[in-house]
């Protein structure tokens, strides 16, 4: 009895050393280091233009938050082995729906938001049903939905308000919650952090998270193990659509207007954020914190150039190089994470 207590006491220092080591080896560390790398580079080049100020940080965080809110559920789908590119059309569709219902048609904001969420959930549900009931890959299904929803948004906008844009000023309270800035940070940043925390628990601390990883690893085995694969996938598509709709609403509240043009860059940006954050395109692997840092990396890289004196025409070149550097950094850490073997010490 006393021996075991002695061993337990002796094992304490080892436990604390292991936990730092574990942190270093976690896949999210790669995304974090990548972000720190690009941050330092732009801090050096952009120091004289206030990159390191609170306003400077808020600047790219605001941009990152709009991508981040959508990137997380897109990342979930990627981990589960699917892709959702219809987000590019769901965002303007939701923004226009909210703008038209609450602007020219003067519905109360709460009702407008409910209808918009319901519409988005419907689109997500259609995505999920088509992916699970047919053998068509999710890339194709969501590509079809992308164009279908985009075309519908444009047509319905012109039918209802004669143009593919709408102006809408949200009431005070809604603006304070959804659109205003606090210390320079837009409300979307706080919602992004909140959503990340909530979905962290879903992915890493709940049975659903296990299901997502299982389905991404091998859908057939997961099904045989009793996981409701179809229902899970449909829920993930609905989640993706709902989060995208929310991002669209935040944009309307912040900029008092909505456009019906399909947001193609959003598709790339969310996938880039996930891949830079360590999510495998082949599925089955990824962390929420990784996606979070991947989004921040993208934000720094995209906006950081504005703080430097580098010729703006080189912007796209720099974005490409920086992202490659971040992903290579990520890859190194992922290898460390999966191949490190802890040395077993005998007492």
């Amino acid at each position: 009895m006393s021996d075991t207590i002695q061993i337990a006491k002796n094992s304490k220092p080892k436990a604390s050393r292991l936990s730092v080591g574990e942190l270093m080896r976690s896949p999210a560390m790669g995304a974090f280091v990548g972000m720190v790398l690009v941050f330092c580079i732009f801090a050096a080049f952009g120091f004289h233009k206030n990159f390191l100020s609170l306003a400077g940080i808020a600047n790219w965080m605001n941009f990152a938050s709009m991508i981040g809110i959508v990137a997380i559920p897109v990342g979930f789908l990627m981990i589960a082995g699917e892709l959702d590119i219809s987000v590019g059309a769901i965002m303007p569709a939701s923004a226009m729906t909210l703008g038209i219902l609450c602007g020219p048609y003067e519905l109360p904001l709460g009702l407008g938001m409910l209808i918009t969420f319901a519409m988005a959930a419907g689109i997500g549900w259609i995505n999920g049903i088509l992916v699970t009931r047919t053998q068509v890959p999710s890339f194709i299904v969501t590509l079809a939905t992308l164009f279908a929803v985009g075309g519908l948004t444009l047509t319905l906008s012109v039918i209802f308000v004669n143009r593919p844009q709408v102006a809408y000023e949200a009431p005070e309270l809604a603006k304070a919650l959804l659109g205003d800035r606090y210390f320079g940070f837009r409300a979307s940043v706080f919602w992004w952090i909140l959503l990340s925390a909530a979905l962290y628990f879903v992915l890493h601390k709940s049975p659903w998270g296990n299901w997502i990883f299982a389905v991404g690893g091998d859908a057939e085995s997961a099904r045989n193990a009793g996981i409701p694969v179809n229902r899970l996938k449909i829920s993930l598509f609905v989640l993706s659509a709902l989060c995208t709709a929310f991002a669209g609403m935040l944009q309307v509240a912040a900029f008092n207007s909505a456009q019906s043009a399909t947001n193609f860059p959003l598709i790339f940006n969310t996938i880039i954020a996930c891949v830079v954050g360590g999510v495998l395109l082949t599925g089955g692997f990824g962390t929420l914190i990784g996606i979070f840092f991947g989004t921040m990396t993208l934000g720094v890289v995209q906006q950081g150039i504005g703080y430097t004196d580098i010729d703006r025409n080189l912007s796209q070149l720099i974005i490409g190089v920086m992202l490659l550097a971040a992903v290579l950094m990520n890859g190194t850490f992922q290898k460390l994470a999966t191949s490190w073997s802890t040395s077993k010490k005998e007492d």
Partner: protein
Amino acid sequence: MNFKKTIVGAVVASMTAGSAMAADIALVIGSNQDAFWNVVKKGAEDAAVLVEARGGSLTILQTQGYENYGPDLAVLIEQATAQGVDGIATVLPVPEAQLPAIKAAIDAGIKVTLLNGGSDALEESGALNYFGSEEYTAGYEGGKYLTMAGAKNILCHNQTPGTANLDARCRGVVDGATEAGANARELPLPANLDQDVAGTSAAIEAELNGDPSIDAVITLATWAADAAYGAIDSLGKTDTVKLGTFDLSPSTLDRIKAGTQAMAIDQTPYYQGFLSVSTLAANIDFGTKIATAPVLTGPAIVDASNIDATFAGVEAGTR
């Protein structure tokens, strides 16, 4: 004898009724992802009422985007030629790519009018007329206006550097401002921020933060004006930084009315669509021609002094 008369009568009747006035027209313009073309279409559709009343038709052909603009427009002109239309109203932003297709259409007996872009190539194209504004001139007037209104350091946001008409606008802004005595420069943002309001807003905010001497921003599209306003507003600089834009939109006009935006440059897209289609149809049906060429539909500056007249048109989507 009677039978022959009936046949001859029927043939004559069908020939005169069918071909006398029937202008089948194709309108070739940019992507419907860009709200600007919607207003052009409203003008064209109003002209189509006349065209259809005389037995003709209007087909609208739009590109997918701007990434491959010249070649895409050339393909659409060829498509219209293949459809056997009587007239093509097209934009001409990339003459090198499109002129061969236009020449082929004219050789096939199709009449052509130009709108929105390409006034310099009017003579070479063999088109009847051009309806639009001149991008450089519009930019020049915009730069001059802001300088007269008190701006000393103007930023011209270009969302897709390398597009000839947008580059010409900012060149005009810079020249107009410089000749009126102010500083001006272009802000070319990477094309992957095109149509991205949040990203563009953050980028413009970074510029304003980095250079506090900027006291005016001019954008080349209305969604970019929304983005720029977001940036100016978050920095609390609506009183010190003037905002101007090309084209009109509901939010732009609301801001001009509220005093948070200085002006908008109107190239009257409604007229570009309406006149290019209606004059083409009239030329096909009656052989008429307008004596002035090119016909400039802009620039017209909309600011606080003439804002009220625009609202009815904005509601109808025609301004």
